């Protein structure tokens, strides 16, 4: 295991009685793309600002390359930030914005020139050096903000919801570019977003935040397939969450029926929540179905139909299907044992990881 470039140990932040960060422990390795994902007010931007040096934490240690940097001022930290509103200096043109950090370092004119041009080329804005900021589109301003940060060759680049102001098409394009840029530069990116699709698409590792706590961390696939609790399951992707009981290992009861599943390590008869992803549900005849539901409404989403249906107990089921259903029809739903994901109530991430390991590797 390589030495982490940034490490947060037991970091807390309070404003008076309001706790915005609770005992955050995060390790970032070199050269990876990390995402802090959570709803607004979950504390993700606070973590970013603490690492950048714009606010002091109430407790805990922030380590950079093995050294404590809690008391190092923002201008001495080897991290750079791409701000949500870009914060490009309106009184300078593109060149001067990108050159700002280099000129502060009093580098030679020729070197500044070369590095600025290289950075602008990197974000595909070569030839825009003489433009004023007000002449640029949102996407171009975004690129200038990135160029201004990467020109300083930071070890870690912090990105605070950088794509939130762009329209959907441009956002998709920028996602590819960001990922490509990160791989080319080989530096650590810490990306803050509330958009789960963005997080899943870009990250090597995601930290899902809520209420100032890291709820779950892991690869996008891990988090999507094995959400730890109701919040994560609900926040990442669409889900059907049903209350049930764990009868014994690999057998769970919900909707009044017992189903085989792929989860284990819980107490017999423990109350649990069961997650079924809408795309894992298949529509079939009532006879072949494990659950019978009545189709209520459906929306055409382009690449799939989103169908809302209700079972006899009036639980809502969300189904993604490539074929349309008929409103008012009663149909059967079928799914495999692996599609069922069982979540314990109030399980800590540590216990969760230990439990998964206990039965997955044998």
């Amino acid at each position, binding site marked *: 295991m390589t030495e982490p470039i940034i490490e947060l140990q037991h970091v807390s932040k309070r404003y008076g009685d309001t706790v915005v960060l609770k005992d955050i422990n995060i390790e970032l390795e070199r050269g990876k793309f990390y995402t802090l994902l959570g709803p607004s007010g979950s504390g993700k931007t606070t973590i970013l600002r603490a690492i950048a040096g714009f606010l002091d934490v109430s407790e805990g240690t922030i380590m950079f390359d093995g050294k404590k940097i809690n008391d190092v001022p923002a*201008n001495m930290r080897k991290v750079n*930030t791409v701000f949500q509103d870009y*914060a490009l200096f309106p009184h300078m043109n593109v060149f001067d914005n990108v050159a700002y*950090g280099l000129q502060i370092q009093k580098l030679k004119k020729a070197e500044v020139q070369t590095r600025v041009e290289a950075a602008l080329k990197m974000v595909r804005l070569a030839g825009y050096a003489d433009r004023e900021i007000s*002449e640029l589109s949102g996407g171009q301003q975004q690129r200038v903000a990135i160029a201004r940060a990467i020109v300083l060759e930071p070890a870690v680049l912090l990105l605070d919801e950088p794509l939130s102001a762009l329209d959907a098409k441009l956002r998709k394009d920028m996602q590819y570019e960001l990922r490509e840029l990160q791989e080319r530069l080989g530096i650590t990116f810490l990306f803050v977003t509330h958009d789960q699709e963005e997080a899943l698409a870009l990250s090597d590792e995601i930290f899902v935040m809520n209420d100032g706590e890291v709820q779950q961390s892991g690869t996008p696939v891990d988090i999507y397939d094995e959400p730890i609790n109701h919040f994560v399951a609900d926040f990442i992707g669409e889900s059907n969450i049903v209350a049930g009981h764990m009868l014994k290992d690999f057998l769970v009861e919900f909707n009044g029926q017992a189903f085989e599943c792929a989860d284990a390590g819980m107490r017999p008869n423990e109350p649990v929540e069961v997650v079924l992803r809408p795309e894992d549900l298949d529509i079939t005849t009532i006879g072949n179905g494990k659950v019978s539901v009545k189709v209520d409404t459906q929306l055409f989403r382009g690449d799939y139909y989103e169908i809302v249906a209700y079972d006899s107990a009036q639980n809502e089921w969300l189904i993604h299907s490539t074929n349309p259903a008929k409103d008012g029809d009663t149909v059967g739903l079928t799914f495999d044992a692996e599609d069922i994901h069982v979540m314990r109530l109030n399980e800590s991430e540590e216990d969760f990881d230990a439990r998964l390991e206990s039965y997955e590797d044998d």
Partner: protein
Amino acid sequence: MAKKSSGTNALFYTPYVLWLGLFVIAPLALIVYQSFFDISGHLTLANYQTYFSSGTYILMTVNSVWYAFIITVVTLLISYPAAYVLHYAKHKQLWLLLIILPTWINLLLKAYAFIGIFSQDGGVNTFLGFFGIAPQQFLFTDFSFIFVAAYIEIPFMILPIFNGIEELDESFVNASRDLGATGWQTFTKVILPLTMSGVKAGVQAVFIPSLSLFMLTRLIGGNRVITLGTAIEEHFLVTMNWGMGSTIGVVLIVAMVIIMFLTGERKKRGSLR
């Protein structure tokens, strides 16, 4: 319907147009008109000739500009840091109110108060007396004139600068720090340039009125400082040479227009495309 609304519009415009006509355009026209007449009522350019050929008036003009300049600089040096501190202060609305408050008091009253404070047996000299320092002459010195003028003008400088700093997005400051700039570098390269419009507005609000100060020159400056304002007053009230007074007035107005032009917002080269 349309007719009625245009009628109402005209009604709303009337007070403004009347005001503009009676108190701005008419006096301006009268001043320009008067400046072409000599004391016995003959149409002439002699007033302008006198103004630009006599050393006294030129000196007076230089004096006026010089004192207005010093007053503006002193005011700016005090106001910018004050506005900056105010921006980060806890109860800034209260502090702001305390700064605005003195402007509600009549100028003359404040001038008389300072006569009391600066006089031989006034507050300042009494205070100095505690340290065994003999009474000093404060009143009727350049120092007291500039001090009192700056005191009166400070609120008009602080307000626009304060507004400028308030409008400055905090993320610019963060961005500058993030890119490695120290606090001072951030100030000179980002904060000051981005609050310059506030400074310019403040300079306009202080420099232009300072050009024509006359009451303070008399009460606090003891007529040692003769500015164009004093000269106009003399011509209109004492020598009754309205033509000459008007000529100086025209010169002052031209000077103001020049200042407005110099401190006004100019288009940046990029936005001309």
